[in-house]
Protein backbone atom coordinates (compact mmCIF):
# COMPACT_ATOMS: atom_id res chain seq x y z
CA UNK A 1 0.00 0.00 0.00
CA UNK A 2 0.92 3.61 -0.47
CA UNK A 3 0.10 6.46 1.83
CA UNK A 4 1.32 9.74 0.42
CA UNK A 5 1.67 12.71 2.70
CA UNK A 6 3.77 15.63 3.81
CA UNK A 7 6.33 16.39 6.48
CA UNK A 8 6.70 20.10 7.24
CA UNK A 9 9.48 21.37 9.45
CA UNK A 10 7.32 24.31 10.43
CA UNK A 11 9.75 25.53 13.11
CA UNK A 12 11.97 26.74 10.30
CA UNK A 13 9.21 28.17 8.12
CA UNK A 14 10.08 31.75 7.21
CA UNK A 15 6.56 32.54 5.96
CA UNK A 16 7.71 33.55 2.50
CA UNK A 17 4.46 32.09 1.06
CA UNK A 18 6.42 30.55 -1.85
CA UNK A 19 4.65 27.20 -1.44
CA UNK A 20 1.27 28.96 -1.34
CA UNK A 21 2.04 30.92 -4.51
CA UNK A 22 3.46 27.85 -6.27
CA UNK A 23 0.23 26.01 -5.45
CA UNK A 24 -1.89 28.90 -6.67
CA UNK A 25 -0.06 29.15 -9.99
CA UNK A 26 0.31 25.40 -10.66
CA UNK A 27 -3.39 24.78 -10.03
CA UNK A 28 -4.58 27.97 -11.74
CA UNK A 29 -6.55 28.89 -8.62
CA UNK A 30 -9.30 31.50 -9.07
CA UNK A 31 -8.63 34.97 -7.67
CA UNK A 32 -9.99 34.61 -4.16
CA UNK A 33 -8.95 31.00 -3.61
CA UNK A 34 -5.86 29.71 -1.75
CA UNK A 35 -5.64 25.96 -1.20
CA UNK A 36 -2.39 26.28 0.74
CA UNK A 37 -2.03 29.07 3.28
CA UNK A 38 0.58 30.11 5.82
CA UNK A 39 -1.05 30.58 9.22
CA UNK A 40 0.55 32.80 11.83
CA UNK A 41 0.57 31.72 15.45
CA UNK A 42 1.35 35.17 16.83
CA UNK A 43 -0.43 38.50 16.56
CA UNK A 44 -3.91 39.20 15.27
CA UNK A 45 -2.78 39.72 11.67
CA UNK A 46 -0.98 37.47 9.22
CA UNK A 47 2.83 37.56 9.64
CA UNK A 48 2.71 39.59 12.86
CA UNK A 49 4.29 38.43 16.13
CA UNK A 50 2.74 38.17 19.56
CA UNK A 51 4.12 40.10 22.53
CA UNK A 52 5.93 43.42 22.98
CA UNK A 53 9.37 44.20 21.57
CA UNK A 54 11.86 42.71 22.34
CA UNK A 55 9.87 39.77 23.72
CA UNK A 56 8.22 38.66 20.54
CA UNK A 57 7.13 35.20 19.44
CA UNK A 58 5.90 33.95 16.10
CA UNK A 59 5.38 30.54 14.56
CA UNK A 60 4.35 29.89 10.98
CA UNK A 61 2.19 26.94 10.05
CA UNK A 62 1.69 26.15 6.38
CA UNK A 63 -1.72 24.49 6.15
CA UNK A 64 -3.68 22.80 3.37
CA UNK A 65 -5.85 19.69 3.21
CA UNK A 66 -4.45 17.17 5.71
CA UNK A 67 -5.40 14.17 3.50
CA UNK A 68 -6.61 12.40 6.62
CA UNK A 69 -6.62 8.65 7.05
CA UNK A 70 -10.00 9.01 8.73
CA UNK A 71 -11.40 11.99 6.82
CA UNK A 72 -14.52 13.67 8.24
CA UNK A 73 -15.36 15.14 4.83
CA UNK A 74 -15.55 11.83 2.96
CA UNK A 75 -18.09 10.35 5.35
CA UNK A 76 -20.58 13.19 5.02
CA UNK A 77 -20.54 13.81 1.24
CA UNK A 78 -23.96 12.60 0.07
CA UNK A 79 -22.81 11.78 -3.47
CA UNK A 80 -19.22 10.64 -2.95
CA UNK A 81 -17.78 13.71 -4.71
CA UNK A 82 -15.07 13.84 -2.07
CA UNK A 83 -13.43 10.47 -1.62
CA UNK A 84 -10.25 8.82 -0.50
CA UNK A 85 -8.20 7.24 -3.25
CA UNK A 86 -7.50 3.72 -1.96
CA UNK A 87 -4.22 3.38 -3.89
CA UNK A 88 -2.51 6.51 -2.61
CA UNK A 89 -4.46 7.76 0.41
CA UNK A 90 -5.06 11.09 -1.31
CA UNK A 91 -8.41 12.71 -0.44
CA UNK A 92 -9.80 13.71 -3.81
CA UNK A 93 -12.57 16.00 -4.98
CA UNK A 94 -14.65 15.41 -8.11
CA UNK A 95 -15.87 18.82 -9.35
CA UNK A 96 -18.26 17.23 -11.82
CA UNK A 97 -20.04 15.30 -9.09
CA UNK A 98 -20.16 17.96 -6.35
CA UNK A 99 -23.70 19.24 -5.78
CA UNK A 100 -22.46 22.23 -3.77
CA UNK A 101 -24.15 21.34 -0.47
CA UNK A 102 -20.99 22.29 1.48
CA UNK A 103 -21.46 19.52 4.02
CA UNK A 104 -17.73 18.68 3.68
CA UNK A 105 -16.74 22.27 4.50
CA UNK A 106 -18.75 22.10 7.66
CA UNK A 107 -17.46 18.65 8.64
CA UNK A 108 -13.74 19.32 8.08
CA UNK A 109 -12.15 20.32 11.39
CA UNK A 110 -9.27 22.13 9.67
CA UNK A 111 -10.83 25.57 9.37
CA UNK A 112 -10.51 27.03 5.89
CA UNK A 113 -8.75 24.28 3.92
CA UNK A 114 -11.84 23.76 1.79
CA UNK A 115 -13.02 26.54 -0.52
CA UNK A 116 -16.22 27.09 -2.42
CA UNK A 117 -16.28 28.98 -5.70
CA UNK A 118 -18.94 31.50 -4.68
CA UNK A 119 -18.92 32.94 -8.21
CA UNK A 120 -17.73 32.10 -11.72
CA UNK A 121 -13.95 31.58 -11.30
CA UNK A 122 -12.00 34.68 -12.33
CA UNK A 123 -8.29 34.93 -13.00
CA UNK A 124 -6.00 37.85 -12.29
CA UNK A 125 -4.29 37.84 -15.68
CA UNK A 126 -7.45 37.02 -17.61
CA UNK A 127 -6.17 33.67 -18.84
CA UNK A 128 -5.37 30.31 -17.25
CA UNK A 129 -1.94 29.73 -15.75
CA UNK A 130 -0.05 26.71 -14.49
CA UNK A 131 -0.45 23.11 -15.48
CA UNK A 132 -2.46 22.10 -18.53
CA UNK A 133 -3.45 18.85 -16.84
CA UNK A 134 -5.63 20.20 -14.05
CA UNK A 135 -9.41 19.87 -14.16
CA UNK A 136 -11.28 23.07 -15.00
CA UNK A 137 -12.44 25.07 -11.96
CA UNK A 138 -16.21 25.27 -11.66
CA UNK A 139 -18.62 27.76 -10.20
CA UNK A 140 -20.39 26.76 -6.97
CA UNK A 141 -18.55 23.56 -6.21
CA UNK A 142 -16.15 22.81 -3.36
CA UNK A 143 -12.44 22.44 -4.04
CA UNK A 144 -9.24 21.97 -2.09
CA UNK A 145 -5.63 20.73 -2.31
CA UNK A 146 -5.44 17.72 -4.66
CA UNK A 147 -1.88 16.89 -3.57
CA UNK A 148 -1.22 17.88 -7.22
CA UNK A 149 -2.86 14.68 -8.42
CA UNK A 150 -1.94 15.55 -12.01
CA UNK A 151 1.75 15.70 -11.06
CA UNK A 152 1.65 12.49 -9.04
CA UNK A 153 0.22 10.80 -12.13
CA UNK A 154 3.39 11.80 -13.97
CA UNK A 155 5.67 10.65 -11.19
CA UNK A 156 6.39 14.17 -9.97
CA UNK A 157 6.21 15.73 -6.50
CA UNK A 158 3.46 18.20 -5.59
CA UNK A 159 4.26 21.73 -6.76
CA UNK A 160 4.64 23.12 -3.23
CA UNK A 161 7.70 21.01 -2.32
CA UNK A 162 10.64 22.25 -4.39
CA UNK A 163 9.97 26.02 -4.34
CA UNK A 164 10.47 26.14 -0.56
CA UNK A 165 13.70 28.17 -0.08
CA UNK A 166 14.09 26.93 3.50
CA UNK A 167 13.77 23.33 2.30
CA UNK A 168 11.34 22.45 5.04
CA UNK A 169 8.69 20.72 2.93
CA UNK A 170 8.96 17.00 2.26
CA UNK A 171 6.62 14.70 0.42
CA UNK A 172 6.57 10.92 0.11
CA UNK A 173 5.10 7.57 1.01
CA UNK A 174 4.65 6.88 4.73
CA UNK A 175 4.04 3.19 4.03
CA UNK A 176 7.55 2.88 2.59
CA UNK A 177 9.91 2.68 5.60
CA UNK A 178 12.87 3.81 3.52
CA UNK A 179 11.23 7.00 2.23
CA UNK A 180 12.57 10.36 3.35
CA UNK A 181 9.31 11.22 5.10
CA UNK A 182 9.22 7.91 6.99
CA UNK A 183 12.79 8.48 8.16
CA UNK A 184 12.01 12.04 9.25
CA UNK A 185 9.09 11.03 11.45
CA UNK A 186 11.15 8.17 12.89
CA UNK A 187 14.02 10.44 13.83
CA UNK A 188 12.28 13.68 14.73
CA UNK A 189 9.42 14.58 17.02
CA UNK A 190 6.30 15.65 15.23
CA UNK A 191 2.79 16.94 15.85
CA UNK A 192 -0.47 16.63 13.99
CA UNK A 193 -2.93 19.50 13.81
CA UNK A 194 -6.00 18.87 16.00
CA UNK A 195 -5.07 15.26 16.90
CA UNK A 196 -8.03 15.15 19.30
CA UNK A 197 -10.36 15.17 16.29
CA UNK A 198 -9.27 11.63 15.48
CA UNK A 199 -8.87 12.32 11.77
CA UNK A 200 -5.33 10.84 11.51
CA UNK A 201 -3.86 13.47 9.17
CA UNK A 202 -1.17 12.63 6.61
CA UNK A 203 0.59 15.92 7.28
CA UNK A 204 3.27 15.76 9.98
CA UNK A 205 4.64 18.95 11.50
CA UNK A 206 8.17 18.55 12.93
CA UNK A 207 8.77 20.24 16.27
Amino acid at each position, binding site marked *: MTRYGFVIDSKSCISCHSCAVACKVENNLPDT*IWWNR*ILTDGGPNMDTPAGTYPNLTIRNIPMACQHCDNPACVKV*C*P*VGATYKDPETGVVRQDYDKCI*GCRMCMSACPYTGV*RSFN*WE*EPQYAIGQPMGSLDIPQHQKQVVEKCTMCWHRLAQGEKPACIDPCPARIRFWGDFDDPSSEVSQLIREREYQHLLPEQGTKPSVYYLV
Partner: protein
Amino acid sequence: MTERTASAPKGGKGLTIGIGVCAVLAVIGVALWVVQLTGGMVQTAMRNLDSWGLYITMFMFFVGLSAGGLIISSVPKAFGIKGFGGVSKVAVMSSIAATVAAIGFVVVDLGQPLRVWELFAYSNLGSPLMWDIIVLATYLVLSCAYLWAQVQAERGKVSATALRVISVVALVCAILVHSVTAWIFGLQQSHEMWHTALLAPWFVSSALVCGTGLVLLVAIGLRRAGYLALEQAYLVKLAKLLGAFLVVDLYFFGCDLLTEAFPAAGGLAVVDMLVSGPLAPFFWGEVVLSVAAAVVCFVPSLRTSPLLALAGVAAILAILCKRVQLLVGGFQIPNIEWPAVMTPSTVTNWQGNLEQAYAGMVYWPAPIEWGVALGVVALAVLIFLLGLKFLPLKPADGE
Protein backbone atom coordinates in the same frame (compact mmCIF):
# COMPACT_ATOMS: atom_id res chain seq x y z
CA MET B 1 -51.45 33.97 7.66
CA THR B 2 -54.68 32.81 9.18
CA GLU B 3 -55.94 36.36 9.55
CA ARG B 4 -56.41 36.54 5.83
CA THR B 5 -59.10 33.91 6.02
CA ALA B 6 -61.24 36.16 8.22
CA SER B 7 -64.94 36.00 7.40
CA ALA B 8 -64.32 33.06 5.11
CA PRO B 9 -66.58 30.25 6.16
CA LYS B 10 -66.00 28.32 2.93
CA GLY B 11 -62.83 30.05 1.85
CA GLY B 12 -64.09 33.46 0.79
CA LYS B 13 -62.39 36.54 -0.56
CA GLY B 14 -59.77 36.72 2.19
CA LEU B 15 -58.49 33.25 1.44
CA THR B 16 -58.30 33.99 -2.29
CA ILE B 17 -56.34 37.19 -1.64
CA GLY B 18 -54.01 35.25 0.67
CA ILE B 19 -53.40 32.66 -2.02
CA GLY B 20 -52.70 35.41 -4.57
CA VAL B 21 -50.24 37.24 -2.33
CA CYS B 22 -48.38 34.02 -1.49
CA ALA B 23 -48.23 33.00 -5.14
CA VAL B 24 -46.72 36.37 -6.11
CA LEU B 25 -44.15 36.18 -3.28
CA ALA B 26 -43.25 32.61 -4.25
CA VAL B 27 -42.70 33.61 -7.88
CA ILE B 28 -40.52 36.54 -6.77
CA GLY B 29 -38.59 34.09 -4.61
CA VAL B 30 -37.98 31.77 -7.55
CA ALA B 31 -36.84 34.73 -9.67
CA LEU B 32 -34.38 35.78 -6.96
CA TRP B 33 -33.13 32.21 -6.72
CA VAL B 34 -32.39 32.28 -10.46
CA VAL B 35 -30.54 35.57 -9.93
CA GLN B 36 -28.57 33.92 -7.11
CA LEU B 37 -27.56 31.01 -9.32
CA THR B 38 -26.70 32.96 -12.46
CA GLY B 39 -24.87 35.81 -10.70
CA GLY B 40 -23.31 33.40 -8.23
CA MET B 41 -23.80 32.66 -4.57
CA VAL B 42 -21.27 35.41 -3.92
CA GLN B 43 -24.43 37.55 -3.65
CA THR B 44 -25.29 35.74 -0.43
CA ALA B 45 -23.40 36.50 2.77
CA MET B 46 -22.15 32.92 3.10
CA ARG B 47 -18.40 32.38 2.76
CA ASN B 48 -15.81 29.64 3.31
CA LEU B 49 -15.61 29.99 7.10
CA ASP B 50 -19.38 30.42 7.51
CA SER B 51 -20.47 28.19 4.68
CA TRP B 52 -24.11 27.74 5.73
CA GLY B 53 -26.53 30.54 6.54
CA LEU B 54 -30.17 31.57 6.56
CA TYR B 55 -31.27 28.73 4.27
CA ILE B 56 -29.97 25.94 6.49
CA THR B 57 -31.25 27.79 9.59
CA MET B 58 -34.71 27.85 8.04
CA PHE B 59 -34.34 24.23 6.92
CA MET B 60 -33.82 23.18 10.56
CA PHE B 61 -36.66 25.44 11.63
CA PHE B 62 -39.20 24.14 9.12
CA VAL B 63 -38.34 20.50 9.74
CA GLY B 64 -39.25 21.31 13.35
CA LEU B 65 -42.45 23.12 12.44
CA SER B 66 -43.59 20.13 10.44
CA ALA B 67 -43.51 17.98 13.55
CA GLY B 68 -46.34 19.44 15.51
CA GLY B 69 -49.13 18.86 13.07
CA LEU B 70 -48.29 15.27 12.40
CA ILE B 71 -47.60 14.37 16.00
CA ILE B 72 -50.64 16.18 17.40
CA SER B 73 -52.74 14.39 14.85
CA SER B 74 -51.18 10.93 15.00
CA VAL B 75 -50.47 10.43 18.72
CA PRO B 76 -54.13 10.25 19.77
CA LYS B 77 -54.92 7.88 16.90
CA ALA B 78 -51.82 5.74 17.42
CA PHE B 79 -52.45 5.28 21.13
CA GLY B 80 -56.22 5.25 20.90
CA ILE B 81 -56.69 8.23 23.19
CA LYS B 82 -58.96 11.21 22.87
CA GLY B 83 -57.67 13.74 20.37
CA PHE B 84 -57.74 17.48 19.94
CA GLY B 85 -61.06 17.94 18.30
CA GLY B 86 -61.36 18.78 14.66
CA VAL B 87 -57.85 20.13 14.08
CA SER B 88 -56.41 16.77 13.03
CA LYS B 89 -56.54 17.23 9.27
CA VAL B 90 -55.64 20.91 9.29
CA ALA B 91 -52.68 20.01 11.50
CA VAL B 92 -51.40 17.44 9.02
CA MET B 93 -51.86 19.97 6.21
CA SER B 94 -49.57 22.35 8.13
CA SER B 95 -47.03 19.52 8.38
CA ILE B 96 -47.09 18.95 4.65
CA ALA B 97 -46.61 22.66 3.95
CA ALA B 98 -43.71 22.90 6.43
CA THR B 99 -42.02 19.81 4.97
CA VAL B 100 -42.19 21.32 1.48
CA ALA B 101 -40.54 24.48 2.85
CA ALA B 102 -37.79 22.39 4.52
CA ILE B 103 -37.00 20.61 1.25
CA GLY B 104 -37.18 23.94 -0.58
CA PHE B 105 -34.59 25.47 1.74
CA VAL B 106 -32.12 22.65 1.07
CA VAL B 107 -32.59 23.08 -2.67
CA VAL B 108 -32.00 26.86 -2.68
CA ASP B 109 -28.84 26.31 -0.63
CA LEU B 110 -27.26 24.01 -3.22
CA GLY B 111 -24.58 25.36 -5.52
CA GLN B 112 -25.48 22.87 -8.26
CA PRO B 113 -29.21 22.18 -7.93
CA LEU B 114 -29.33 20.64 -11.42
CA ARG B 115 -27.20 17.81 -10.07
CA VAL B 116 -29.67 16.68 -7.40
CA TRP B 117 -30.41 13.56 -9.44
CA GLU B 118 -26.93 12.39 -8.38
CA LEU B 119 -28.31 11.94 -4.88
CA PHE B 120 -30.17 8.93 -6.22
CA ALA B 121 -27.54 7.77 -8.70
CA TYR B 122 -24.46 8.00 -6.46
CA SER B 123 -26.03 7.87 -2.99
CA ASN B 124 -23.45 7.67 -0.22
CA LEU B 125 -25.63 5.92 2.32
CA GLY B 126 -23.15 6.73 5.07
CA SER B 127 -23.84 10.47 4.85
CA PRO B 128 -26.30 11.94 7.38
CA LEU B 129 -27.40 14.33 4.64
CA MET B 130 -28.36 11.34 2.50
CA TRP B 131 -30.28 9.85 5.44
CA ASP B 132 -32.13 13.13 5.80
CA ILE B 133 -33.08 13.30 2.15
CA ILE B 134 -34.48 9.75 2.31
CA VAL B 135 -36.35 10.32 5.58
CA LEU B 136 -37.66 13.74 4.54
CA ALA B 137 -39.01 12.40 1.23
CA THR B 138 -40.63 9.46 3.04
CA TYR B 139 -42.06 11.85 5.59
CA LEU B 140 -43.64 14.04 2.92
CA VAL B 141 -45.19 11.07 1.14
CA LEU B 142 -46.41 9.60 4.43
CA SER B 143 -47.96 12.89 5.54
CA CYS B 144 -49.89 13.10 2.30
CA ALA B 145 -50.94 9.44 2.59
CA TYR B 146 -51.97 9.99 6.19
CA LEU B 147 -54.10 13.00 5.29
CA TRP B 148 -55.70 11.03 2.46
CA ALA B 149 -56.36 8.08 4.79
CA GLN B 150 -58.08 10.36 7.31
CA VAL B 151 -60.36 11.76 4.64
CA GLN B 152 -61.12 8.28 3.34
CA ALA B 153 -61.70 6.96 6.85
CA GLU B 154 -64.37 9.60 7.37
CA ARG B 155 -66.05 8.37 4.22
CA GLY B 156 -65.85 4.84 5.58
CA LYS B 157 -63.42 3.71 2.90
CA VAL B 158 -60.43 3.12 5.18
CA SER B 159 -60.82 1.08 8.35
CA ALA B 160 -59.98 2.48 11.77
CA THR B 161 -57.28 -0.18 12.13
CA ALA B 162 -55.63 0.82 8.88
CA LEU B 163 -55.69 4.47 9.93
CA ARG B 164 -54.14 3.51 13.24
CA VAL B 165 -51.33 1.60 11.51
CA ILE B 166 -50.61 4.55 9.22
CA SER B 167 -50.59 6.91 12.19
CA VAL B 168 -48.05 4.73 14.04
CA VAL B 169 -45.76 4.63 11.00
CA ALA B 170 -46.16 8.39 10.52
CA LEU B 171 -45.30 8.99 14.17
CA VAL B 172 -42.13 6.90 13.99
CA CYS B 173 -41.12 8.69 10.79
CA ALA B 174 -41.74 12.07 12.45
CA ILE B 175 -39.41 11.24 15.34
CA LEU B 176 -36.84 9.96 12.85
CA VAL B 177 -36.94 13.05 10.65
CA HIS B 178 -36.00 15.30 13.57
CA SER B 179 -33.31 12.97 14.82
CA VAL B 180 -31.73 12.67 11.40
CA THR B 181 -31.82 16.44 10.90
CA ALA B 182 -30.05 16.77 14.23
CA TRP B 183 -27.44 14.22 13.15
CA ILE B 184 -26.47 16.36 10.15
CA PHE B 185 -25.04 18.67 12.79
CA GLY B 186 -24.58 16.48 15.86
CA LEU B 187 -22.34 13.89 14.20
CA GLN B 188 -19.74 16.50 13.22
CA GLN B 189 -16.87 16.30 15.67
CA SER B 190 -15.46 19.50 14.23
CA HIS B 191 -18.07 21.76 15.87
CA GLU B 192 -17.98 21.39 19.64
CA MET B 193 -21.33 23.12 20.00
CA TRP B 194 -23.08 20.58 17.77
CA HIS B 195 -21.26 17.41 18.74
CA THR B 196 -23.48 16.07 21.50
CA ALA B 197 -25.69 12.97 21.78
CA LEU B 198 -28.34 15.25 23.27
CA LEU B 199 -28.86 17.00 19.94
CA ALA B 200 -31.30 14.44 18.44
CA PRO B 201 -33.72 14.26 21.42
CA TRP B 202 -33.34 18.01 21.75
CA PHE B 203 -34.36 18.51 18.11
CA VAL B 204 -37.43 16.37 18.80
CA SER B 205 -38.39 18.47 21.82
CA SER B 206 -37.77 21.76 19.97
CA ALA B 207 -39.83 20.46 17.07
CA LEU B 208 -42.66 19.62 19.45
CA VAL B 209 -42.51 23.13 20.91
CA CYS B 210 -42.74 25.05 17.66
CA GLY B 211 -44.99 22.48 15.99
CA THR B 212 -47.51 22.57 18.81
CA GLY B 213 -47.24 26.36 18.85
CA LEU B 214 -48.11 26.40 15.16
CA VAL B 215 -51.08 24.06 15.57
CA LEU B 216 -52.37 26.17 18.48
CA LEU B 217 -52.02 29.32 16.43
CA VAL B 218 -53.67 27.82 13.34
CA ALA B 219 -56.52 26.36 15.40
CA ILE B 220 -57.28 29.69 17.07
CA GLY B 221 -57.01 31.55 13.78
CA LEU B 222 -59.26 29.16 11.86
CA ARG B 223 -61.82 29.11 14.64
CA ARG B 224 -61.89 32.86 14.60
CA ALA B 225 -62.27 32.87 10.85
CA GLY B 226 -65.23 30.53 11.22
CA TYR B 227 -63.49 27.74 9.31
CA LEU B 228 -63.93 25.23 12.11
CA ALA B 229 -65.64 25.06 15.47
CA LEU B 230 -63.45 24.03 18.38
CA GLU B 231 -64.25 23.81 22.07
CA GLN B 232 -61.98 25.88 24.31
CA ALA B 233 -61.18 22.69 26.23
CA TYR B 234 -59.24 21.38 23.22
CA LEU B 235 -57.20 24.56 23.07
CA VAL B 236 -56.46 24.28 26.78
CA LYS B 237 -55.33 20.71 26.22
CA LEU B 238 -53.01 21.86 23.41
CA ALA B 239 -51.71 24.67 25.60
CA LYS B 240 -50.89 22.31 28.47
CA LEU B 241 -49.05 20.08 26.04
CA LEU B 242 -47.14 23.09 24.68
CA GLY B 243 -46.22 24.08 28.24
CA ALA B 244 -44.87 20.61 28.95
CA PHE B 245 -42.82 20.59 25.72
CA LEU B 246 -41.42 24.03 26.53
CA VAL B 247 -40.25 22.85 29.94
CA VAL B 248 -38.61 19.73 28.49
CA ASP B 249 -36.87 21.85 25.85
CA LEU B 250 -35.58 24.29 28.45
CA TYR B 251 -34.46 21.36 30.60
CA PHE B 252 -32.40 19.97 27.70
CA PHE B 253 -30.98 23.47 27.16
CA GLY B 254 -29.94 23.64 30.82
CA CYS B 255 -28.36 20.17 30.70
CA ASP B 256 -26.37 21.11 27.61
CA LEU B 257 -25.15 24.44 28.99
CA LEU B 258 -24.05 22.84 32.26
CA THR B 259 -22.21 20.02 30.48
CA GLU B 260 -20.45 22.51 28.19
CA ALA B 261 -19.51 24.91 30.95
CA PHE B 262 -18.65 22.69 33.92
CA PRO B 263 -15.19 21.43 32.86
CA ALA B 264 -14.29 25.12 32.30
CA ALA B 265 -12.48 23.99 29.15
CA GLY B 266 -13.32 24.38 25.46
CA GLY B 267 -17.07 24.28 25.99
CA LEU B 268 -16.93 27.42 28.10
CA ALA B 269 -16.37 29.42 24.92
CA VAL B 270 -19.69 28.10 23.59
CA VAL B 271 -21.53 29.17 26.76
CA ASP B 272 -19.83 32.60 26.77
CA MET B 273 -20.77 33.13 23.13
CA LEU B 274 -24.41 32.35 23.91
CA VAL B 275 -24.84 34.08 27.25
CA SER B 276 -22.82 37.24 26.74
CA GLY B 277 -21.26 37.01 23.27
CA PRO B 278 -22.45 37.78 19.76
CA LEU B 279 -25.39 35.38 19.99
CA ALA B 280 -26.72 36.69 23.31
CA PRO B 281 -29.81 38.35 21.76
CA PHE B 282 -30.90 35.01 20.34
CA PHE B 283 -30.03 33.10 23.52
CA TRP B 284 -31.95 35.43 25.82
CA GLY B 285 -34.66 35.78 23.20
CA GLU B 286 -35.23 32.05 23.32
CA VAL B 287 -35.18 31.88 27.11
CA VAL B 288 -37.55 34.83 27.65
CA LEU B 289 -39.99 33.78 24.92
CA SER B 290 -40.03 30.16 26.13
CA VAL B 291 -40.67 31.14 29.75
CA ALA B 292 -43.36 33.65 28.77
CA ALA B 293 -45.13 31.07 26.60
CA ALA B 294 -44.91 28.47 29.36
CA VAL B 295 -46.42 30.87 31.91
CA VAL B 296 -49.40 31.52 29.64
CA CYS B 297 -49.84 27.79 29.11
CA PHE B 298 -49.70 26.90 32.80
CA VAL B 299 -51.66 29.71 34.48
CA PRO B 300 -55.40 28.94 33.99
CA SER B 301 -56.51 32.57 34.17
CA LEU B 302 -54.11 33.50 31.34
CA ARG B 303 -55.45 30.90 28.91
CA THR B 304 -57.54 33.30 26.86
CA SER B 305 -57.57 32.86 23.11
CA PRO B 306 -55.51 35.98 22.29
CA LEU B 307 -52.89 35.11 24.92
CA LEU B 308 -52.77 31.49 23.78
CA ALA B 309 -52.23 32.69 20.22
CA LEU B 310 -49.41 34.90 21.50
CA ALA B 311 -47.96 31.92 23.38
CA GLY B 312 -47.99 29.99 20.10
CA VAL B 313 -46.14 32.82 18.34
CA ALA B 314 -43.66 33.10 21.23
CA ALA B 315 -42.95 29.36 21.13
CA ILE B 316 -42.33 29.47 17.37
CA LEU B 317 -40.04 32.51 17.65
CA ALA B 318 -38.17 30.94 20.58
CA ILE B 319 -37.28 27.94 18.44
CA LEU B 320 -36.30 30.21 15.56
CA CYS B 321 -33.87 31.89 17.98
CA LYS B 322 -32.57 28.43 18.90
CA ARG B 323 -31.94 27.62 15.21
CA VAL B 324 -29.98 30.85 14.71
CA GLN B 325 -27.86 30.06 17.79
CA LEU B 326 -27.14 26.58 16.50
CA LEU B 327 -26.26 27.54 12.96
CA VAL B 328 -24.31 30.77 13.44
CA GLY B 329 -22.93 29.51 16.76
CA GLY B 330 -21.51 26.47 15.02
CA PHE B 331 -19.38 28.70 12.79
CA GLN B 332 -18.68 31.39 15.38
CA ILE B 333 -15.94 29.38 17.09
CA PRO B 334 -13.28 28.18 14.60
CA ASN B 335 -11.06 25.22 15.46
CA ILE B 336 -8.02 27.01 14.09
CA GLU B 337 -8.02 30.77 14.56
CA TRP B 338 -4.48 31.58 13.48
CA PRO B 339 -4.67 34.43 10.97
CA ALA B 340 -3.88 33.80 7.31
CA VAL B 341 -4.50 35.47 3.97
CA MET B 342 -7.97 37.05 3.79
CA THR B 343 -9.90 37.24 0.52
CA PRO B 344 -13.55 38.09 -0.25
CA SER B 345 -14.22 34.32 -0.19
CA THR B 346 -12.77 33.74 3.28
CA VAL B 347 -15.48 34.99 5.62
CA THR B 348 -18.45 37.38 5.52
CA ASN B 349 -16.59 40.29 7.15
CA TRP B 350 -13.29 39.74 5.37
CA GLN B 351 -11.96 43.30 5.18
CA GLY B 352 -10.31 43.28 8.59
CA ASN B 353 -8.54 40.41 10.30
CA LEU B 354 -10.04 37.21 11.68
CA GLU B 355 -10.51 38.67 15.15
CA GLN B 356 -12.68 41.41 13.65
CA ALA B 357 -14.59 38.90 11.52
CA TYR B 358 -15.58 37.01 14.65
CA ALA B 359 -16.15 40.08 16.86
CA GLY B 360 -19.86 40.29 16.06
CA MET B 361 -21.97 37.58 14.49
CA VAL B 362 -19.72 35.92 11.93
CA TYR B 363 -22.68 35.70 9.53
CA TRP B 364 -25.71 37.83 8.81
CA PRO B 365 -27.88 37.21 5.71
CA ALA B 366 -27.58 39.34 2.59
CA PRO B 367 -30.73 40.94 1.06
CA ILE B 368 -31.07 38.27 -1.64
CA GLU B 369 -31.16 35.53 1.02
CA TRP B 370 -34.08 37.27 2.76
CA GLY B 371 -35.90 37.48 -0.58
CA VAL B 372 -35.37 33.84 -1.51
CA ALA B 373 -36.27 32.72 2.03
CA LEU B 374 -39.48 34.78 1.94
CA GLY B 375 -40.33 33.09 -1.34
CA VAL B 376 -39.87 29.60 0.12
CA VAL B 377 -41.98 30.48 3.17
CA ALA B 378 -44.66 31.94 0.87
CA LEU B 379 -44.65 28.68 -1.08
CA ALA B 380 -45.37 26.75 2.12
CA VAL B 381 -48.18 29.12 3.14
CA LEU B 382 -49.55 28.90 -0.39
CA ILE B 383 -49.72 25.11 -0.15
CA PHE B 384 -51.46 25.36 3.22
CA LEU B 385 -54.01 27.89 1.99
CA LEU B 386 -54.68 25.88 -1.17
CA GLY B 387 -55.31 22.90 1.10
CA LEU B 388 -57.81 24.94 3.12
CA LYS B 389 -59.57 26.03 -0.02
CA PHE B 390 -59.70 22.85 -2.03
CA LEU B 391 -59.32 19.90 0.33
CA PRO B 392 -61.99 18.60 2.73
CA LEU B 393 -60.05 19.56 5.85
CA LYS B 394 -63.01 20.71 7.92
CA PRO B 395 -63.85 18.47 10.84
CA ALA B 396 -66.32 15.71 10.05
CA ASP B 397 -69.56 15.68 11.97
CA GLY B 398 -69.24 14.35 15.46
CA GLU B 399 -65.52 15.15 15.82
